[in-house]
């Protein structure tokens, strides 16, 4: 384990991506304490005003401070990302790990996954949101449903390989229970691809939340989200490009940093690059 941490920290992509992402997370966390402007306070005289020392990111079409709104959006976007990643990870791990031990369960679960994966992710999310109505919780539920199948598949395929390893057979010969084998021996050995996939799910969740909010199906105004700031900015793109630029930059920075970290993690945890 320590060797893996060391190897991950020696990977440039993981360190750079991780640092950028941590910076964004830090801003989301302590930003409102430092930049105490109310993101929902309207000041019509400042409508679409350009960036200035008082409002570094400028103001939006209701005269609200854009920096405060981007920070508030970060809390929403990253919050949704974390919640979706946690839900997807937990569900995917349980489904994937048990599917490899029960053939019938495997068939049922994997056919459901096949069905869900045959619909483009964003379309499925849009359909689910349209059904459930727009709210933060529904975004989390919809995106978790969208991303669980791919997570379950990755856990299952790796678990299938581990299950055939002689050391698992040795445990069966010793009389170990299925639960013991799954949780103490298979799950720890599927952690590497699992963690890598989790970072990608996080990135995709951030992106999809922005897309849903942009389409008006996600976070509802007046609450800020990177997606709905973009949506509002789209109409005034020429007059106030900063309304597009700052939330878009935030999305790109967080998704890029997560993908960078995920790729780095994959290289670091790949046993083929093991040097010990």
């Amino acid at each position, binding site marked *: *384990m320590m060797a893996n941490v060391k190897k991950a920290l020696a990977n440039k992509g993981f360190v750079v991506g991780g640092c950028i992402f941590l910076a964004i997370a830090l801003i989301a966390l302590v930003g409102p304490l430092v930049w105490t402007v109310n993101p929902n306070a309207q000041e019509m005289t400042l409508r679409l005003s350009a960036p200035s020392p008082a409002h570094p990111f400028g103001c939006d079409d209701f005269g609200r401070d854009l920096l405060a709104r981007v920070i508030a959006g970060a809390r929403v976007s990253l919050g949704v990302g974390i919640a979706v990643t946690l839900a997807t990870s937990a569900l995917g791990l349980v489904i994937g790990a048990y599917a490899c031990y029960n053939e019938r369960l495997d068939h049922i679960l994997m056919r459901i996954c096949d069905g869900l994966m045959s619909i483009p992710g964003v379309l499925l999310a849009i359909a689910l949101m349209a059904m459930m109505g727009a709210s933060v919780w529904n975004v989390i539920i919809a995106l978790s449903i969208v991303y669980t199948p791919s997570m379950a598949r990755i856990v299952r395929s790796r678990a299938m390989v581990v299950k055939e*390893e*002689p*050391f698992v*057979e*040795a*445990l*069966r*010969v*010793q*009389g*170990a229970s299925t639960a*013991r084998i799954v949780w103490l*021996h298979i799950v*720890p*050995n599927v952690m590497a691809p699992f963690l890598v996939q989790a970072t990608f799910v996080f990135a995709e969740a951030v992106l999809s939340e922005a897309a849903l909010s942009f389409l008006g199906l996600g976070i509802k105004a007046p609450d800020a989200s990177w997606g709905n700031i973009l949506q509002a900015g789209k109409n005034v793109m020429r007059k106030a490009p900063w309304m597009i630029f700052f939330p878009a930059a935030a999305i790109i920075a967080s998704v890029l940093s997560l993908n960078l970290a995920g790729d780095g993690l994959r290289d670091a945890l790949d046993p083929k690059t093991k040097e*010990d």
Partner: protein
Amino acid sequence: MAVDSEALLRVSHLTKTYPMPGSGFKRQVFTAVDDLSFEIAPGEVYGLVGESGSGKSTTGRLICGLERADSGSIVYRGHDLATMSERERKPFRREIQLVFQDSSTAFDPRNRVGRILEEPLIIAGVRDADERHGRALSALASVGLLAEHYDRYPHDLSGGQRQRLNLARALICEPRLVVCDEPVSALDVSVQAQVLNLLRDLQRTTGVALLFITHDMRVVRHMSDRIGVLYHGRLVEEGAAEDVIAHPSDPYTQELIDAIP
């Protein structure tokens, strides 16, 4: 060696087939073990020798309960393991252990040596951590490993040391039968001799019976009391190890012996 009714393990008419890959809807089958019968007495070393595809490994896996037989019986001390459910079988599990050929995949790469040795004890219900620790240390000593190996990972050990650990793990719950599937084939000659000597010593001192599966006529002669020669899942010859090799009665056995360089 006379085999009487007190056989530890009596395998009768054991058959195992696998569906042929790519046979599609026609359901062709490949017979890995074909109407196989033999017996192992308590404390006996029975060598099962054959080439690849002879069904020798499958036989070992059937006896250990890693596969289910199509038909036939595996009677262990009066109980037929072949027809038992997983639950009924559980109390017999620790009495029949398995030693693998490839010691690099035989252990959870995330567990240290100590944990690897204590796990069978945990499964067997030994609750006292001090007792487990003590038994793990004495198991290490019994196979010629040191107490300092307790905190190592298996990949820090050499191939020979890992195979010693493999033996220690198989013996820690004091089984009555150990199935050794090509236990020294992956080792270098000089290390092979060390492990064979160790296995022989351990067998003598603990009185455990061994089913010794190998392709190597020299090794099987050295280790076994009796041997059975497998060919396409069938037992073609059986007898005292030295006799079979000195005077083979079956043409296939003769061919195997002639091919030894």
